[in-house]
């Protein structure tokens, strides 16, 4: 009883459902309370005790259905059995013939050879291999399923890691079930010219094919159960570390997920942090003043509240042609940041600066990014123009609480970099952070004006993977809360 449940827990963990030891204990109690009889009840009850969020519930559902589809194998074997049921229809005489052949074996040499091969098999290595042929002939799907289950445990089917392993493992599993002897038997009958044409050979061959399919499907299910999510996780982790401009378009969807998860992580982290900073202390001065009337006996207490400073951020994102490959992600990132921060002013530019806060606010991420890119993206860059626009329209909004983040490569097509405006921003803002997708070594090469801007940034860093982005924003949030 216990073992399949442990396996199920393993499958759950593989499906990225966090199951703690305590929850396993709870689940065991739950099973004791509801029993295995009512499948739906069991599912509902287990879902209550191990899957603790909406996403986990979904994953739990899939894993549960997959896992128990495996034990419910019989259902599929019934389907397998039916062609076999058909076969016995033709072979009903053949099946009768088999014992008949055995009896006749005393007289008929060929048939007796066949019979003795079977007997030799059974004496050689116990019941399993003998029964493989028998099970096929008898259409005993339950026994086959059980044998397959046992063989699967033997070859460690649950350890499957990649999809291509499935054929190899399926073959191993069948070997474990005694496939070799089945093959021997088939070839023996095949070679034997005197073998009765009773369809037994065909039945065995057909059974073998069925068995192969069944085993392969079994391994596929194992893969779904134990390895698929792990593979996806691996892929996501890999993407987090990949340079943004190298990410192929087909992975955009996954990237969206990765970035959004990062934003959510940051958000929940800092929502809490705000609150932690908000503990009340007794305001002694005001308490005493309030209680003058009571002769200074402090009947009424007054509490002090620490007001916390929410980070106010101005983000400027380059979406010009030179950063075309990363602009998407930078915008995606801005979008996520917008969900995290209470006060974020976002701008994007190729040459002229445009405020995009409204777009980020009103549209879903899938809509917002194309809209912005279409409106202002992929033209030639002019940082000088951008800075002039910023000075004319938005400089006043920057004060000593503001953090300015600039996302861009600093390549300005030879136009005037206007670094004196950067200096003004630098002097007014609390912090200026420049995140450049290019590696440090190419700053200052060609039309890159990074060396001109760098003195006016508190931080100038290369940032071209999601991981780096996350770390930088984490630092940013932490420092702004401490203030």
């Amino acid at each position, binding site marked *: 009883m216990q073992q399949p449940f442990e396996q199920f827990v393993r499958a759950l963990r593989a499906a990225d459902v*966090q199951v*703690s030891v*305590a*929850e396993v204990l*709870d689940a065991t*109690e*739950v099973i004791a*309370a*509801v029993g295995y009889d009512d499948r*739906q*009840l069991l599912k*509902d*009850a287990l*879902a*209550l*005790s191990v*899957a*603790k*969020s*909406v996403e986990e*519930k979904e994953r739990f559902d899939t894993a549960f259905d997959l896992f128990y589809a495996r034990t419910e194998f019989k259902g599929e074997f019934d389907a397998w059995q039916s062609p076999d049921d058909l076969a016995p229809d033709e072979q009903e005489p053949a099946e009768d013939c088999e014992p008949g052949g055995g009896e006749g074996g005393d007289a008929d040499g060929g048939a007796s050879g066949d019979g003795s091969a079977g007997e030799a098999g059974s004496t050689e290595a116990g019941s399993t291999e003998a029964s493989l042929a028998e099970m096929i002939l008898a259409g005993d799907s339950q026994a086959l399923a059980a044998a397959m289950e046992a063989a699967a445990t033997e070859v460690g089917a649950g350890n499957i890691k990649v999809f291509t392993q499935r054929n190899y493992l399926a073959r191993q599993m069948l070997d474990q079930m005694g496939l070799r002897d089945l093959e021997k038997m088939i070839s023996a009958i095949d070679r034997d010219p005197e073998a009765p044409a009773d369809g037994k050979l065909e039945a065995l061959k057909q059974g073998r094919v069925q068995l192969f399919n069944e085993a392969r499907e079994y391994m596929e299910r194992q893969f779904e159960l134990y390895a698929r999510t792990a593979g996806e996780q691996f892929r996501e982790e890999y993407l987090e570390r990949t340079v943004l401009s190298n990410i192929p378009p087909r992975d955009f969807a996954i990237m969206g997920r990765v970035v959004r998860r990062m934003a959510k992580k940051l958000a*929940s982290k800092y*929502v*809490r942090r705000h*609150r*932690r900073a*908000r503990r009340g202390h007794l305001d002694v001065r005001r308490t005493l003043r309030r209680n003058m009337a009571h002769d200074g*006996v*402090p*009947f009424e*207490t007054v509490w002090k509240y620490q007001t916390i400073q929410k980070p106010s951020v101005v983000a400027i994102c380059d979406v010009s042609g030179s950063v075309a490959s990363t602009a998407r992600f930078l915008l995606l990132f801005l979008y996520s940041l917008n969900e995290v921060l209470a006060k974020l002013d976002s701008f994007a530019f190729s040459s002229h600066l445009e405020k995009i806060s409204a777009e980020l606010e009103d549209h879903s991420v899938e809509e917002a990014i194309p809209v912005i890119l279409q409106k202002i993206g992929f033209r030639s860059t002019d940082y000088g123009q951008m800075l002039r626009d910023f000075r004319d329209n938005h400089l006043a909004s920057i004060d000593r609480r503001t953090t300015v983040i600039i996302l861009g490569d600093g390549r300005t097509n030879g136009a005037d970099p206007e670094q004196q405006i950067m200096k003004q921003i630098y002097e007014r803002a609390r912090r200026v952070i420049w995140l450049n997708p290019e590696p440090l070594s190419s700053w200052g090469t060609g039309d890159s004006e990074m060396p001109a801007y760098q003195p006016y940034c508190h931080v100038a860093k290369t940032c071209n993977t999601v991981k780096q982005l996350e770390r930088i924003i984490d630092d940013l949030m932490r420092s702004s809360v401490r203030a």
Partner: protein
Amino acid sequence: MSTSKDIHLASVEKIISGLGTVSYVASRQIATAILIAQNLDKPILVEGSAGVGKTELALSTAALLDLPLIRMQCYEGLDESKALYEWKYGKQLLYTQVLKDKIGDVMQGAVGLRDSMTQLHQFSDVFFSEDFLEPRPLLKALQYDEGCVLLIDEIDKSDEEFEAFLLEILSAFQVTIPEIGTIKAKTPPIVFLTSNNTRDLGDALKRRCLHLFIPLPEANLEEQIVAARVPDIEARLRRKLVSFVQQLRGLDLKKLPSISETIDWARVLVLLHAEDLEPDLVRETLNVLLKFEEDIRNTDKQIPEMLRQAEKVAEHGHLAATI
């Protein structure tokens, strides 16, 4: 009382029918949650969007079992003194002021500092006894001998510290008051925590709870719910209305209407003596279902089409019923 609990909560079917008697139409998942919670003495954390009946579930359970319901609404800044207990500070102070004059009597015969101290020690616990303890919801919930239903509403609105502080109560059904000692519930209360998921709850809390997610209901279930809550409404209109709401949920809206809105709308229609869903009537009452001006505007054009669809469903359902 525990016997009534045992009877009402014996099986999933019993729970469903029992909650039905107090006009709460429960799905199998919900009933299973209560069954397991009862068996394992565990709190249930109920999640789901606003208005799917999370709070209602606790109220109905209390009604079903005829137990008192203690409700604690969480909010930012909620702390132990508001949730668990508080010393009646004013009363303590007042007493010390009034008793100032008595101090002479108490001290009578005491010679020297040490003697006075010993005298004082005999009275030291007077001010920190249950007389000066103001029990708040959580402590109250532990004090009912027959047990009760404790509803901790919108736990996601409270601070993280508060969550941590709940852990002792939720796992052992006891609280420790330093000055008095540990108070343990004679009968563990049935605890519901609800969350709208405005923030992720801590793992420690989740681990100690059963997690129940109530989704927006299927048409069938929703119809049953409306029937239970607004019995006056005519069957055909009900089917149409539910179908309409279900279609609304398929649209891209800021805030999808949930069960409570459906019920409200049904009530409004009954009040207006509506016989059928006319486009104009729907337009006039749509603000019951949709809470954003923008949503109402965006839906407006699609109303006739959705009504036609609803009509079809109602017809079809009707036909099916007669056959």
